């Protein structure tokens, strides 16, 4: 069984933002809040680099540089720090993050992507999200809650209602988020490229497990706080239709540690 992991831009950026500040004892390390999990996966892909597990597409690479450009723009436009202090400091911090990003990109295998080959996959991805957007408009959490509450014993229905209401809300979150937060073109292109790459490898290498490492809930399951209920209708549909397993970097790291020898 071969394994392939395509990393979303959010994973690359989070793994790039880390600085060690010397001058205090011990030195202070400042990092993105997802740095440890994302770098854990990148480290594993680096370890397995001879197996060519970690993949990169031009879309993701361009998007990564574009995110850094947007971060800089926002920093320059909103910072209250005087320019003579901001520019040199931001330049130093940016160089450090860019150097890290460059190092990470070098460990991933660049996949050639022909736009025309991805088009049919994009159409299927778009169709899938359209269906979920329709579903998000009509999903009736109240009906689902009351239907389940009716089955509870009398005297417990108040409590049951509160539990089932929360349950319905939590388990449907990945779909209901589409009422106000829809996947953009870059998201759909990324998934289409992942589906295309799975099909490409499947044709040549028979047994392939294909992961998309992402912190984006348009792909990866939405987890409840403190390990509560998970919402994963979209994740499951992606797995069923496109054979792409979407999950967070730490989950994919765990799977790779067990599966890759």
């Amino acid at each position, binding site marked *: 069984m071969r394994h392939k992991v395509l990393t979303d*831009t*959010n994973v690359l*950026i*989070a793994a790039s*933002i880390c*600085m060690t*500040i*010397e*001058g*205090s004892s011990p030195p*202070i390390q*400042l*990092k*993105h*809040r997802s740095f440890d999990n994302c770098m854990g996966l990148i480290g594993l892909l680096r370890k397995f680099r001879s197996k060519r597990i970690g993949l990169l597409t031009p879309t993701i690479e*361009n998007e990564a*540089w*574009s*995110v*850094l*450009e*947007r*971060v*800089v*723009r*926002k*920093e*320059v*436009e*909103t*910072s209250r*720090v005087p*320019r*003579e*202090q*901001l*520019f*040199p*400091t*931001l*330049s*130093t*911090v*940016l*160089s*450090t*993050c*860019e*150097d890290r*990003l*460059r190092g990470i990109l070098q460990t991933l295998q660049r996949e050639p992507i022909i736009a025309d080959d991805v088009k049919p996959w994009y159409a299927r991805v778009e169709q899938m999200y359209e269906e979920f957007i329709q579903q998000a408009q009509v999903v009736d959490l109240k009906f689902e809650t009351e239907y389940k509450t009716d089955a509870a014993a009398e005297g417990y229905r108040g409590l049951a209602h509160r539990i089932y209401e929360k349950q319905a809300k939590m388990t449907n979150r990945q779909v209901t988020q589409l009422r106000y937060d829809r996947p*953009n073109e*870059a*998201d759909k292109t990324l998934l289409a490229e992942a589906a295309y790459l799975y099909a490409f490898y499947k044709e040549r290498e028979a047994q392939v497990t294909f992961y998309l490492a992402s*912190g*984006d809930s348009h792909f990866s399951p939405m987890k409840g706080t403190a390990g509560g209920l998970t919402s994963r209708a979209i994740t499951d549909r992606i797995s069923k239709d496109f054979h792409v397993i979407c999950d967070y970097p730490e989950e994919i790291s765990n799977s790779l540690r067990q599966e890759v020898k």
Partner: protein
Amino acid sequence: MGSSEIDLFGDILGLLDSMDKARKVDESVVGKLDQLADSLSRSEVFWLNNNDAKPVDAFMLFHAFRNLHGISLEAKSRFAVAIAKHENPRTVDDAMKVFPSVFSLFATVKSLEGQPLTPGLRSMIVSRIQMLRGTAAGANMLPSEGENKGTSQPEIREQARALAETAQEILSEA
């Protein structure tokens, strides 16, 4: 594009070529690199103080010239050490790898001066700077001390924190 800078680049590239053939450092390269670093430093200061351009455009050009300046200074220092220690061909080989990228970034940013930068042009500058830094890292010519010039540790700490938060916000919006 300033003719004096073009002349300097021409002189340096010519010197590198002849040093490569002779496999020996020509001491005049240090003076040329010093002049180039001075000129790049002036451009860096120009964009730091330029209030006419959009702040983000001024920053991008400042960031580009700061990298060009830092790498040129590092090259000058490597050549000075090479002359003192008679480490001839290695520094020439390293500089031969880096200077085409230095010139390429310089030509790019010079051609963009005076016009508003689109997000695509800014991303292009970021990736060109990275190409240069990648080559410089491979040739051991990344700025060592000079990179933190004009900054203090607390400022860097605050800026790193702000950058991490802004990146988080942007990734959440995406």
